């Protein structure tokens, strides 16, 4: 649906269309509301500064890639404090994944793998989109998702 829709022409349109899912993604990557707010803010500021989106890209994929990169950069600075209460704001959208799984994923996974886990296990994105967000091939995206899943399962046990 997003692909056929015309591109946003203003920052306001970009926010109206994507801020909710980008915020949820930020919360799932960081595990705490203050960190999610920072990541949301950094993502959109970078988008505003880097406007317009690169032509070959749709704006949503572009935002996900910015958010993922910012999360990876920021992970070195951030302390990984996870708030289950905050995570309830972005409760997993898929069966078979609980808030506890997500909290564990945030605790044990490095930021890049965490993004792979969130995009696949929590948000159910197709591998094409995951590859776009992680800026890698679809094959590499599959590998990262599968490594991430293994680690999370091991951590739960």
């Amino acid at each position: 649906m997003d692909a056929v829709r015309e591109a946003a022409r203003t920052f306001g349109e970009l926010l109206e269309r994507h801020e909710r899912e980008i915020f949820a993604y930020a919360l799932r990557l960081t595990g705490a509301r203050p960190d999610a707010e920072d990541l949301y803010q950094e993502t959109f500021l970078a988008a505003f500064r880097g406007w317009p989106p690169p032509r070959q890209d749709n704006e949503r994929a572009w935002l996900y890639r910015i958010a993922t990169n910012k999360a990876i950069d920021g992970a070195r600075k951030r302390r990984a404090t996870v708030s289950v209460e905050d995570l309830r704001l972005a409760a997993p959208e898929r069966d078979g994944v609980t808030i506890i799984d997500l909290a564990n994923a945030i605790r044990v996974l490095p930021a890049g793998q965490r993004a792979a886990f969130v995009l696949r296990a929590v948000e159910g994105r197709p591998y094409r989109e995951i590859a776009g967000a992680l800026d890698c091939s679809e094959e590499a995206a599959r590998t990262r998702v599968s490594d991430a899943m293994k680690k999370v399962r091991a951590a739960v046990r």
Partner: protein
Amino acid sequence: MNATDRMEAVADARERLLARAKREGLAAVGYDVLDSPVGPLWVAIGPQGVAAIHFGPEPSEAELRRLVRVFGPGIVPDRKRTSGLCRELDQYFEGRRQTFEIPVDLRGLTPFQLRVLRATSRLPYGEVATYASIAKRAGNDRASRATGAAVGSNPIPIVVPCHRVIASDGTLGGYGGGLEVKRRLLALERAQVPPGGWPKRGQSATMAG
């Protein structure tokens, strides 16, 4: 409850983001939608003042294109920036305000459009003038048709009171918000428009009524 909480969290985050974007010069224009007695109004404030007022909850395609061309893509929702205009509009609709004090930002218009809109702005509350007389006041009395177009392109109706400009034959002429809105604004200002419009030239008011 979850969804509501998440929306609140996003709204908080958005407010901080927009404050920062504005400080960095990334958000030239702030907009909001207000309720009014003539329906929802989409209003936008530029760096110097009111940049757009549109009848309806969204700007038209042409209007949005104009704003992006003039101000760039930094057009964002911003209730704080529009609050001064909202207050003045509320007072106007309650009949407690006859002139607007808020500054305007009409960059991007041609010198002729600006002259016409300036002449339109000088029309006193509750009075009407014809397109031809506005053309004369704008310094070009033969450009009545072009004047009509310039009045019609007014990006900030109500604040620039183009509803006070009517056709030479006494009919209402046109209005971006629709003739019913024009009629209601004039009625509000006690210009007492009879139902069916102003009497035609040469006819008496009683015949038209």
